[in-house]
């Protein structure tokens, strides 16, 4: 069974300047959000397979939306993240079922490779609440310049019976990175860590 989507929002942020210095090329992040009906709102459901399948569907859909919005080829994606905010008639486990078992594989297909764990967050929330989507390098989790996050917020979601599911993709790290650590250029991308 596929997701009943009420709404999709896609945002692209470009940072051209920070603290008086030009950022060239601009750093860019995209985040795509789907607001879906929670099929298990208000009930205890032991088997969450349906939500896992919805996660697979949204991983592909939202991953593609981000890549398209950035206007890049999949291999140009550098970091990613995923998050869900479940409305008050659901439970945190619903968010987990969407995010963890099946969302990652199709997202990785959308950004090509993706050896690293997809950074994630989840919470319960109400319309207008902020969801902070963590970002990490897609092939080597230790790349320090790419630890970041992007905030999403929709004034009208999630309603009590809804779940807001977000995927974020970038083609760059933070503006002006200078705290050292493994760099994008030096990452091997084999084990997902370095």
């Amino acid at each position, binding site marked *: 069974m596929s997701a009943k989507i009420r709404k999709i929002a896609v*945002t692209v942020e470009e940072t051209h300047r920070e603290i008086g210095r030009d950022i060239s090329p601009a750093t860019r992040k995209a985040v795509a959000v789907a607001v879906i009906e929670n099929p298990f709102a208000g009930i205890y459901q032991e088997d969450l397979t349906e939500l896992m399948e919805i996660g697979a569907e949204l991983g592909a859909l939202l991953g593609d939306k981000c890549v398209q*919005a950035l206007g890049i080829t999949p291999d140009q994606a550098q970091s990613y993240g995923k998050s869900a905010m479940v409305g008050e008639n659901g439970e945190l486990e619903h968010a987990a079922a969407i995010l963890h078992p099946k969302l990652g594989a199709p997202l990785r297909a959308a950004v090509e490779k993706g050896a690293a764990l997809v950074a994630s967050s989840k919470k319960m929330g109400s319309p207008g609440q902020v969801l902070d989507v963590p970002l990490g390098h897609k092939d080597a989790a230790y790349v320090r310049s790419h630890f970041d996050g992007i*905030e999403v917020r929709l004034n009208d979601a999630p309603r009590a019976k809804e779940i807001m599911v977000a995927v974020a993709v970038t083609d760059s790290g933070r503006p002006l990175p200078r705290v050292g650590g493994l760099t994008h250029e030096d990452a091997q991308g084999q084990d997902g860590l370095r």
Partner: protein
Amino acid sequence: MPEVILRKTIYTIEEVFHEGGPQPEKSLRRAAALAIIENPFAGRYEPEIQGFMEDLKPLGLNMAQRLIEMLGGADQIEGYGKGAMIGEGGELEHGALWHAPGGYAMRQMLADSNAIVPSTKKVAGVGGRLDVPITHINASYVRSHFDSMEVGSNDTPRANEMVLALVMSTGARIHDRAGGLAAADIIGKDGLR
């Protein structure tokens, strides 16, 4: 007059498929363009500020063009609006400089856009949100197209910045049924009806 110093842009598109009722054939899409720029007048009272409107024109055109592309072409656009948030080092009047370059940029690129572009503005802190009003591009009284879009970002506007916003939409509210002048009945001469 000072040049426009751009720190950041944010482009958002949202597509609404239903709002609890039967899913209509046509979804509603809204898109917002935000430019976060330095406020050249922050921190002082500057009596002469109008020259900056001229400087903002290319930015307005650029934002309007990208919104049109995001929404699939000028013939798709049925609603628009604009707004500004001024960081705490500035004053409301600085936001008013966006009326002409922002509004006319959209109207220049959209055929049959006789209606005034609705707007809002405020002084805000970092993380401030702005509800940008939307009305029909050719007749302000078209009730189905009265709408709005919330915009903002966690890191703007800083004290010495302004957030300039343009929004466009592709149609009526989802499940619109509050009556009034219908888009099909527009006369299209005075920008009102």
